[in-house]
């Protein structure tokens, strides 16, 4: 890990940094929700298909 002491970010740079962090956090929440929704729909489709009601023997 490297750190430097040469320069301090400007207010605008920090504002952009915060905005990027906020957008990434929101994107992660949306991604997790979309994946969860897709899994729920997949489970619902499987249940409605009657696939699990098939008697194999």
């Amino acid at each position, binding site marked *: 890990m490297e750190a430097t002491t040469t320069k*301090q*970010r400007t207010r605008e740079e920090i504002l952009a940094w915060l905005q990027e962090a906020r957008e990434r956090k929101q994107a992660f929440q949306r991604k997790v929700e979309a994946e969860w929704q897709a899994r729920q729909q997949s489970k619902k489709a499987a249940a409605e298909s009657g696939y699990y009601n098939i008697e194999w023997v």
Partner: protein
Amino acid sequence: MNRLDTEAINQRSPYDVHYENEQYVFVTDNGIEYHVDFELDSNPYYTAYWFNLANPERSKSPNDKKIPQTVICIIEEFFNKNPEIMLYMCSTANNQQAQRARLFLRWFNGYEQRQRYYIKAVEVKGDENRKEYIALIMQRSNPQLDEIVSRFDSEIAMFNELKP
């Protein structure tokens, strides 16, 4: 970032944690899923990762002490595998970021190994005067602790003092 060892997490975690789609996932006794990931921060001065915790159903789990215990186990393993810095930004959903910041600090301060870590939580005045809460967490053994904390403090102080 070095991938976390879920077996190591699960030795102490009350909820079973598994790795899925580059996320660390656990399901509570009430069937509520939690997803954790770590994203590389873009600051040019030191290596840090943003800690993200998401609950896809946005369900509440009051008084489930196993959730903070599990999250702390994941964070502990993060630091075991990655000597860098962890950053946390509270969600602003429902304008409850201050409560979330206090809750996160309470989780962390209740952690038995808390003395191993330095945690600094700050309030910053973001866009449109919205208050953001950010925490910086690093191991006290990090040789750059003083330098990084000093930089973090001075940048945040400057940001909060200067009006756009």
